[in-house]
């Protein structure tokens, strides 16, 4: 299975994950600063800045895109409960 490397910049931890992993599956376990509310892509609590490797995440769904717009999210920001890793290297930190 393809692997990816996700770095949570605020805690300095890089995790090797299988493709398809969502950021939420990793960030809480390592104590990264991304915090969660609904965990279903609605509340925008887990807004995350993608510092690099934005193209290595699966494109946001229409619903995630709408939530990002409703909450005036800047570009290169994603919901950590929704964003799925495709491969390569990605660096993220709390918005």
């Amino acid at each position, binding site marked *: 299975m393809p692997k990816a*490397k996700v770095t949570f910049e605020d*805690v*300095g*931890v*890089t*995790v*090797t*994950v*299988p493709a398809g*992993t969502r950021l939420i*599956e*990793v960030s*809480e*376990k*390592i*104590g*990264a*600063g991304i*915090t*969660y*509310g609904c965990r279903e892509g*609605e509340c*925008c*609590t887990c807004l995350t800045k993608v510092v690099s490797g934005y193209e290595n995440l699966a494109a946001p769904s229409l619903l995630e895109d709408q*939530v990002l717009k*409703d*909450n*005036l999210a800047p570009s290169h920001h994603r919901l950590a409960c929704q964003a799925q890793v495709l491969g390569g290297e990605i660096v993220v930190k*709390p918005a």
Partner: protein
Amino acid sequence: MGTAARTPEGAVEVAPGVHWIGAFDPDLRIFDIILRTANGTSYHAYAVRGSGGVAVIDTVKEEFADEFFRRLESVASYDEIRVIVLNHLEPDHTGALPELLRRAPQARLYISTRARSMLKGLLGGDSLTYTAVTTGDSLSLGDRNLQFLQTPYLHWPDTQCTYLPEAGILFSGDLFGCHFCDRRLFDDVVGDFRFSFDYYYAHIMRPFGAYVREALALIDPLPIRLIAPAHGPVLRGEPRRHLERYRVLSAPSRYGGQEPTLLVFYISAYGNTRHMAEAVAAGAESAGGVRVSLYDLEGSEVAPFVDLIEGADGIVIGSPTINGDAVKPVWDLLSSLAVVGVRGKLGAAFGSFGWSGEAVAMIEDRLRGLKLRVPVKGVRAKLVPTADELAECTALGEAMAQHLTGRNEAKSIDMAALA
């Protein structure tokens, strides 16, 4: 309502062309489950008349809709209403909205950009048309204008203020409000509402202190002659005094200098969890750069601990496991943190147990649920902690101190190791 003053039948002028059209609810004693009130509350709505039409700012709780419409009708006809502004979509302010939209179908709805999903959730369907606004947006009523200030999380994501510059009036929604019912309406003639004002802040705004400070920065430059909140007295006496009060109440409550602070709480039946707590505190202390405090949960009421946590950067909680659960004083503390902002603080757990030891993981889950970060795995010890287990506690304290001071080492791991 505790006074001989009569409830005004019609609208009340708060400034030329601006009328209060709200309602009084003197019998309410508990609001929204969490707030008590000794004399009820009020739901404020306002009508602003310009040369180009009338704006209605907010409505009232549904069961008070008749009062609202009676007062509205005393100052405007429905076909004059061009604009409806919702500063906050909670039902006590939008209860009369569906009927108002039915009576004034030509009116355009203005809500904060953060309010879209809430409008859909409250009123259902996608058929409502509206304009979503944010700071810097304004609309003209002909000879006067309404300017919008986005002030999120005071106390919902959608909250905003609306400013009428020609009259110097800030329609502030729940900001600067309180549950205090007095039909004399204005702050310079009502009874003493200072307690209600501070109590409302403590239960509604306190978790959002950083957002309060951002809102004050937006509001400060405005010439304000009157603050028209959505509950409680209309503030015309010394409006700036209430801004200053919010500034005091929202000031960060840090202890000591700039060094991060770590609080270690424990409760212990036979001294085992206490020994672990002392090792955690000693470890954090030995790592340096952190101000460490150690507290026995049995030594105080909950409220002072909540105050301490509000001002701290990290907390570590120790609990024995009794009958498969953490003990009640721990849950009492953890269920009392909704009134302060704890998002992003660091948390950890530890504890002694007899045979199953669920408490540590339960506390960690609760800390994550409260949006704390839990960067270090907790420590469990079966009954009397061994020297190795006490060393693990010391290491937990050291690791927390390193995370709090940004000295934690970068590392690379495989996801499988996190299982």
